[in-house]
């Protein structure tokens, strides 16, 4: 088994570059001329956009800039890059090959595992994702009570640092009372016991983290060699000091309510993720102003008694109740389906405008990067994609793509294999 895995890894490295990107990305001055600009924050306008130094330098009618490369956008639609606030992109390469999976460290308490460290900038899934207009993703570790620290990355760059988009957040999996799958035949009692045990160890860890944060305060930012090395607890300091939000993964109704009580008691600034049954407790989420990153929308109803469209409708129900809702895919290789997840939410009650916000400005706001991302505004980072139509519509094609002001070729393994094999040569014989 191990040998086969290692062999597969070798193969991956051997083939790295194959089916990736042939053309190089370009940087510089770009003038997007004559498109319909969906700014998200300031309505839809017709005009030009000047991209300079990686930023949106100007939005105006008839911009003239002799040095800029002109991109003709007549008849096309311009959108801010889409943001998926919950993925494993860059941390996972091949599902069934465990040694290509970097999102699950061992142990319950590993908040110091930094996702950005393990992001593979040349993951084959990255070009596959971005050519569909997704420019920015939160990549999230997943196993244990505190699986690690998620990182927001742009889908372009040759080092994790180049990709880093300015947000990191500690992730917590709130103890679940759900069943893992239909094959999970634990008794209700066992589930309850497991939950109680998890809650207890959660509280123990938290108390230690609080004490550690107090010690840090007394250290006044100085290092002290006498201080015990406690990286797990140190990673919690910004959360405990309310300087950074905690990403709390929680899905079932009663778990969400319990998590609400828990964060209120601990006075934590939290973002809830998953939140599959958020529609059942939408009023409470709204009341306590908990932002939510929900999804996948394209998922099966979680209870056999649920209405068939519950997962499609849940995001819209929460949003209408006043909850700030972003939509995620929780995917790795198919993060590219983000616009379709939002599209289904739009169709089943959320509406096109709100659903589009849920994958642009709302996640940017929730993650505290709305000054840079999530809309087309002067001074923001030039993460932009240009389409021949509604980005939710399945058949819509992306015509141009910019990340950090770089023009990205619309190439991926999938498109390159298409080109090579549509008319194979030699054909038969």
């Amino acid at each position: 088994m191990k040998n086969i895995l290692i062999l597969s890894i070798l193969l991956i490295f051997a083939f790295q570059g194959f089916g990736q990107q042939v053309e190089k990305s370009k940087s510089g001055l770009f003038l997007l001329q004559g498109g319909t600009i969906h700014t998200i924050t300031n309505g839809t306008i017709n005009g030009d956009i000047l991209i300079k130094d990686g930023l949106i330098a100007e939005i105006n009618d008839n911009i003239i800039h002799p040095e800029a490369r002109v991109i003709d956008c007549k008849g096309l639609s311009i959108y801010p890059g889409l943001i998926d606030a919950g993925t494993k992109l860059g941390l996972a390469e091949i599902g069934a090959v465990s040694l290509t999976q970097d999102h699950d460290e061992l142990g319950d308490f590993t908040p110091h595992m930094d996702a950005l460290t393990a992001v593979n900038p040349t993951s084959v899934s990255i070009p596959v994702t971005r050519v569909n207009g997704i420019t920015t993703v939160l990549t999230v570790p997943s196993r244990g009570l505190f699986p690690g620290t998620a990182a927001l990355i742009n889908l372009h760059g040759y080092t994790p640092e180049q990709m880093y988009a300015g947000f990191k957040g500690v992730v917590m999996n709130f103890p679940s009372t759900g069943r893992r799958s239909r094959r999970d035949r634990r008794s209700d009692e066992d589930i309850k016991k497991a939950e109680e045990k998890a809650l207890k160890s959660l509280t123990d860890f938290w108390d230690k983290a609080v004490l550690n944060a107090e010690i840090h305060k007394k250290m006044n930012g100085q290092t002290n060699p006498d201080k015990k090395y406690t990286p797990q607890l140190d990673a919690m300091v910004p959360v405990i000091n309310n300087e950074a939000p905690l990403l709390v993964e929680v899905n079932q109704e009663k778990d969400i309510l319990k998590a609400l009580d828990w964060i209120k008691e601990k006075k934590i600034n939290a973002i809830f993720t998953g939140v599959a049954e958020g529609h059942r407790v939408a009023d409470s989420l709204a009341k306590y102003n908990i932002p939510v990153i929900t999804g996948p929308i394209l998922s099966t109803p979680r209870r056999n008694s649920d209405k068939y469209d519950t997962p499609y409708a849940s995001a819209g129900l929460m949003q209408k109740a006043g909850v700030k809702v972003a939509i995620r895919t929780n995917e790795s290789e198919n993060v590219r389906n983000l616009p379709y997840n939002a599209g289904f939410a739009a169709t089943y009650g959320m509406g096109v405008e709100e659903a589009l916000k849920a994958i642009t400005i709302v996640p940017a706001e929730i993650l505290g990067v709305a000054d840079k991302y999530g809309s087309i505004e002067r001074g923001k980072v030039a993460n932009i994609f240009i389409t021949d139509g509604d980005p939710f519509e399945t058949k819509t094609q992306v015509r141009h793509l910019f990340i950090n002001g770089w023009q990205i070729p619309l190439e991926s393994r999938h498109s390159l294999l298409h080109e090579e094999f549509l008319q194979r040569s030699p054909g038969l014989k």
Partner: protein
Amino acid sequence: MKYISTVLLFIFSFSLYGQNDSGDILIKNGTLLTITEGTKENTDILIRNGVIDKIAKNIKADNVLTIDATGLYVMPGIIDAHSHLAIDAVNESTNPVTAEVNVGDALDPFDIGIYRALAGGVSISHAMHGSANAIGGQCETIKHRWGVTNPSDLRMDGAPRTIKFALGENPMRVHGEGNRISPSTRMGVEQVFRRAFSEALAYMKAWDDYKTGKTTIPPAYNLRMETMADIIKGDIIVHCHSYRADEILMLMNVLEDFGVKKLCFQHVNEGFKVAPELAAFGAHASVFSDWWAYKFEVYYSTAYNATILTKNGVVTSINSDSGELIRHLYHEAAKSQKYGGLTDTEALSLITINPAKQLGIEDRVGSLEKGKEGDVALFKNHPLSIYAVPQMTIVDGIIRFDINKDPSDMRIDVDPEEEIPAFYEFEGHHHEGDACMQDVFDYFNNEK
């Protein structure tokens, strides 16, 4: 609120299905996407006794339940050529060859997945054995007659028999890695087929000799060999789980050697690489719209697979293999427009007439034509649009899903002891629970 369902509503909705349980229904003024005969605006379709009786404008029929489809799209019921819906067992994974087992023996009319599929316009699915074995079990083509309680009532009577084969990692993992018995390589997988077919030929001869009086003692009966013999005789369509180009070519060579012609590859992620060979053999392909990278053998995949195959003349369908995807196959088919620009009819064929051909039922379903069975799906907005919403799904002329009569709890069989219906963390993604490998997990867990 959406959750005002009551038991009364539930019972009411079932009795409502009974309104037209003779299978008579008239659907008026829809935009008909016939698949085989173009688009027909403002047209009526009359179904009598479960069969399409007439397609025309202004049909008049008395005493027939009439549906106003003004502003709606009317298409043939969607067909899924690969699912594991409505069966209690998927993999008899103990042996590399289990041709004798039949998932049709394990039908589960209470699987809520049937209703969810109907709510996505799907009227027929191919309930398949899993991919643990090189020669897995026989499969069952079922009609989504939600509400029946006799498992046999799900069967599409008269549909050709089909069987699941599997190549590559799954049989290698289960038998080679798991049990330390051959096959543990793709070479070994080929030899499993050659041996099984050769033994079947010997078995057939032994029975021929007995029946023609050359021998006097009846040979031992072997249901596994009986089934292999039926494949050789052409009575069973082979549906083969496959990914890599080399193994796809291998199976075509083996089947050619034994004179087996009816073949449809399943998943076939690298089918695009050997599309000309598939077309030349006459093999069909049933693919995912965009799944890839969940294991090594699908790392070199492309979402353009369906397009490349179609344009090379291979009869291609898009399937679900998932209780999640089956709910929006219309959307999965639309991805062939994004990835390769298929026309509306080509894209819709991927989930209607083409899977019908792959299951050998294309003369009965898969398009809106007079004389075909009354399986119809009604959509608000074009089914290939992201804004499409299935409104009603009709099977054999009987309404089995109606968005306007859809209480939240559609279960038929309710556990009288379960506190409240369980919440599952599982989202329905492929890489979280490969449906093709269902039942194998128990088995591995037991290993330890």
